[in-house]
């Protein structure tokens, strides 16, 4: 116990000592051909967060990004390689950035930070499960979108085996979070409640664009990642997108973040 704690302290010191590497690289599946909705949301959240922190990073797309990842709770993606360190998924990457004292949200007080963490956890769980549900549980979406995209990088019959394994893992995850026996209406209801909570939070400070005032924080990144992915992904079943579109403040929020962090840099190029 003591040695483990000491080891963590040493690691923390090591992490904070090194500056952010210029060649930090984010690994993700191929965006146009391969990536799935839950993975796209997670990758977009991480990208938004790093842009909000003004940290430079490269993006590398590869077919085996998921298998290269050291693992995580949800999608295992994206993972970031920063110097000798590799972290996967939104929360570990955020923790890593915070260790270097480069994080947005350092201006928040403890109460506000704890409050934000609650929202982040809510957003991550509800939206990721909903995305997994619509991608793997809905038969039509699975056949027309999920299976062809996931299998595109593997030759036959490896593609079918990979699809089978991935779907089984996704269904197992849904079962763990007790989403496997919900019907689509219950899922939509959960998503609607989550959106309602977020919109209420956004309306608390109507004159500022972000959830906690003038500056962005973790919650802005992850909410943008999930909401924007749901809104911009075309599926045979658009129930999730239609649900999110009902909340105008959230749609405006996504448009604002997209223009501020993703569009302005692209236009001059």
């Amino acid at each position: 116990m003591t040695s483990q704690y000491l080891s963590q302290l040493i690691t923390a010191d090591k992490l904070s000592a090194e500056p952010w590497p210029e060649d930090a690289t984010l690994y993700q599946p191929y965006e146009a051909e391969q990536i799935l909705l839950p993975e796209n949301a997670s990758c977009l959240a991480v990208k938004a967060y790093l842009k909000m922190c003004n940290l430079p990073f490269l993006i590398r797309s590869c077919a085996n990004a998921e298998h290269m990842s050291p693992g995580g709770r949800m999608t295992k993606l994206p993972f970031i390689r920063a110097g000798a360190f590799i972290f996967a998924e939104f929360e570990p990457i955020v923790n890593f950035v915070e260790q270097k004292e480069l994080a947005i949200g350092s201006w928040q007080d403890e109460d506000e930070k704890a409050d934000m963490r609650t929202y982040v956890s809510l957003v991550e769980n509800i939206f990721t499960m909903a995305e997994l549900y619509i991608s793997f549980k809905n038969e039509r979406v699975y056949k027309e979108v999920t299976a062809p995209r996931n299998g595109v990088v593997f030759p036959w019959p490896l593609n079918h085996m990979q699809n089978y394994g991935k779907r089984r893992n996704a269904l197992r995850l849904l079962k763990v979070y007790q989403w496997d026996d919900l019907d689509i209406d219950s899922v939509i209801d959960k998503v609607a409640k989550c959106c309602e909570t977020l919109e209420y939070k956004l309306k608390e400070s109507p004159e500022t664009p972000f959830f906690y005032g003038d500056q962005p924080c973790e919650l802005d990144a992850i909410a943008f990642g999930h909401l924007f992915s749901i809104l911009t992904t075309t599926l045979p079943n658009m129930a999730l997108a239609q649900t999110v579109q009902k909340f105008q403040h959230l749609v405006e929020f996504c448009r604002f973040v997209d223009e501020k962090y993703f569009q302005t840099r692209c236009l001059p190029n």
Partner: protein
Amino acid sequence: MPKSGRDGGASKDSKYDLSKISARVDRVNVSGLLRTHNDYVMRAADGLFKASNFQDLMLEAMSTKSYLHELGIFKDVSVHIDVSRGADASPQGYEVTFKGNEMSRMMGSAGTEIGQNEGSLRTELTIPNILGRGENISLQGSYSSTRANDLQLKFWKPFFHTRFKENRPEMSFSIFRQTDRFDISSFQTTNIGYLVDFSAHTMVGVDLTHSLQYENAIRDVGLLNKSVPFAIRDHCGPKLASLLRYSVVYDNRDGNVFPTRGIYLKSVNEYCGLGGNVAYTSSTAHGELNVPLFAGLVAQFCARVGVVKETKNTTQLPISSLFYCGGPLTLRGFKFGGAGPVVESTPIGAQSFWCTGAHLWAPLPFAGVFKNLASHFRMHFFYNIGNNNSFSTENMRSAFGMGLAVKLAERARIELNYCVPVRHQDTDRILNGFQFGIGYEFV
């Protein structure tokens, strides 16, 4: 007893010249066939009918007995030679009867198996002679120090009963699951697939053994540690490999483990890329030359070379197909893979390698005293030279030493060597001192 031998035999020589006794085989019987089809044993009698004297008859009977054993259907075979009787019996006519005891319907075995620098526990369940012509199905499972939980289901069929029996053709089809662990590089490969194998001998001048295999397998590279160099992590994930493998062996040594004379040559060539998303060609060659000297001393020269290349620009050489140079089977005085390229202080395989060995083998001192035991042991002095990713003499690795070798089951051997590395690079993992090795193909 031939009647001609009885007359005056007591008064003349005490030995009979069997080649002078004429004989003729009238009939050959093979009994004990229950599940076996008759045509599978028909060719057994070919040689017997050509015998014209009793000595030839005896020799042919013995070789036919061996042949019946090789067919893989009998537990044991006995031979009876009797005078031919009946209306159609000819003078000096004989009947030869082979009594076979067919194998049971199911056989099991458990034991240990020797691999290349590994020992493993193996269990096997075999159903022999399943279709009546020597076919068998076997289910084999093994657990070893470096492999984990291998499983293979194999169907094997010989064609020893055809007119090509001299070439000993055989075919097999197997489904396998195999895990190769590369602990020094912190990854393992799980292969699941099937293999079709055809092998035969050719006797055009020299006796060669050929094997042609088609393998289709899913290779999944997984990591064994959290902290692994990124160059290795890059290879993670499943890939589909579809490959042809051709190997040829020439072996005229007088022994497998401790030959005193003869040459052994082996070449294995792989072409991967018939479909799937792995593409490379790989060639490995191994040679061994044994020269007897005086007083039981034998000089031995060994060499091995391997090259692997990618064949399509879009693919990457699979890490599990690279060569690991170093270790008791290749370069003594180095740890396994310890004489190869290194990335972030972790050994990674090489795209090409060569290594050579020169040995002086000697029987143990006092070999005459414990004759039977001593024949399983040999002493040797050795000098190994090798390199990887380069065929020049720059940056070579080398080591010398001496050791004791033990023969194991007429196939493999154990070596305990004292090694002194001579030339090595900074990143190499040398082993100065005692080194243990087990396997069946050493350099």
